[in-house]
């Protein structure tokens, strides 16, 4: 179902629900369990929020292309945008031991993506930014 088909969404926050449904359907079709489906939804939501906020610098400035590939191992999601490239290494990890008053949320989206997915890979070329994320099926029960 929709394997390898690219869906294009306007780069605005109101697209997040539809993008989430799209990847959740692919994750279910790929045979991921409920926890993994939720992880995929979260990682993709954070990735798309970052594309809108940072790559495009705001809403309505470009599209997000979302492609889901399903294979025996699980699900690969490719997100493509035409916004500014950024250095993922420059984003500091959140401090998980912070008290409530020193707690900051910056960098949490990227941290979630890396924790929730089995592979997160950024590529920046003249044709835009490509983020590839992989979620593998649990092989042990």
């Amino acid at each position, binding site marked *: 179902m929709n394997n390898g088909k690219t869906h294009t969404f306007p780069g605005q*926050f*109101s697209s*997040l*629900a539809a993008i*989430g449904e799209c990847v959740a359907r692919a994750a279910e079709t790929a045979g991921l369990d*409920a*926890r993994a489906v*939720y992880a995929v*939804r*979260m990682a993709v*939501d*954070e990735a798309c*929020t970052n594309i*809108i*906020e940072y790559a495009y610098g705001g809403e309505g400035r470009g599209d997000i292309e979302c492609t889901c590939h399903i294979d025996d191992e699980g699900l690969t999601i490719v997100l493509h945008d035409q916004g500014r490239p950024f250095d993922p290494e420059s984003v500091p990890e*959140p*401090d*998980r*031991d*912070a*008290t*409530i*008053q020193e*707690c900051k*949320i910056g960098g*949490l*989206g990227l*941290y*979630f993506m890396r*924790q*929730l997915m089995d592979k997160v890979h950024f590529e920046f070329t003249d044709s835009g930014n490509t983020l590839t994320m992989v979620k593998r099926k649990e092989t042990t029960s």
Partner: protein
Amino acid sequence: MEITTKKYKRCDLVQASGRIDSDTAPQLAEAFNAIIEDGRFNIVFDMDDVDFISSAGLRVMIDVQKTCKQRSRGEMVLANVPDRIYEALDLAGFVPLFKFFDDVVDAVGSF
């Protein structure tokens, strides 16, 4: 996302349903801010019908907790947190920042 609020003698109850993401988080912040601007800092957030929350929603929860806990004037407690959302809070390291209740009545009664 839908939000309802109820005012009790010692606290306010906020119930949200659906998705809390970058699109809907500002509405949630507005609901909490209305309570805080009323000078009320004891809040129960019932998450029973929340089926998704992103870091944008978690940011709202942290901001509310920071504001409520200032000068020990109150706090926000959480009720009926779904497993997946508890896992997200845990992944972010936010579990120690909140009290959790399995039931709204207990949460309201804690104030």
